[in-house]
């Protein structure tokens, strides 16, 4: 709860500072907003770790195979990093770089999923007669 209050207060203060910095010195203004996003996410890492631990425990109880759970966690992590990067560069006014970063995230998630897709196709082919 204190962490939440801290992040909200910091957000308000940074917004006020940014109204000045964006006008006078837009380059450092963009960097301040990046720094705020990074710090806020660093604060969020610990609760996120707890959420992930809960998910892992639940999947163990449901007897999901660990390989698949690791795959899902990796995909979520890649999506997290890619969307942070894309939003930051879009915020700095470079939407082309933002979409390139997003595309990179999609490609790497697809590469992660390729073995699973191949396994599904193999199973389907095995089901077919003849």
């Amino acid at each position, binding site marked *: 709860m204190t962490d939440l209050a801290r992040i909200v207060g910091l957000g308000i203060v940074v917004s006020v500072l940014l109204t000045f910095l964006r006008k006078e*010195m837009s*380059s*450092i203004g963009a*960097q301040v907003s990046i*720094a705020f996003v990074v710090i806020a*996410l660093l604060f969020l890492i610990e609760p996120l770790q707890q959420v992930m631990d809960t998910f892992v425990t639940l999947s163990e109880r449901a007897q999901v195979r660990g390989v698949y759970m*690791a795959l899902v966690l990796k995909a979520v*992590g890649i999506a997290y990093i890619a969307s942070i990067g894309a939003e930051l560069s879009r915020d700095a006014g470079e939407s082309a770089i933002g979409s390139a970063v997003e595309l990179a995230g999609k490609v790497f998630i697809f590469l992660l999923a390729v073995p699973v897709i191949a396994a599904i196709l193999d199973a389907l082919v095995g089901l077919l007669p003849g």
Partner: protein
Amino acid sequence: MDITMVYRIAGLGIIVAILNIVLAQAGRQEQAQMLSLAGVVIVLVWLVQMIADLFSDVETVFKLWY
């Protein structure tokens, strides 16, 4: 790694902006540009370290290493 980093960056930005205005008023346009470039580079060095911290934390949480 905490909140003070954001305030430090914002403070540096405000100082650089004010010095920039002063230098521009004094007719030293080139020095003003060099000053703003120096400010941007300094903040970038801080930022890169913070982003590296964030990425390593995300890697740990989502177990990207195996």
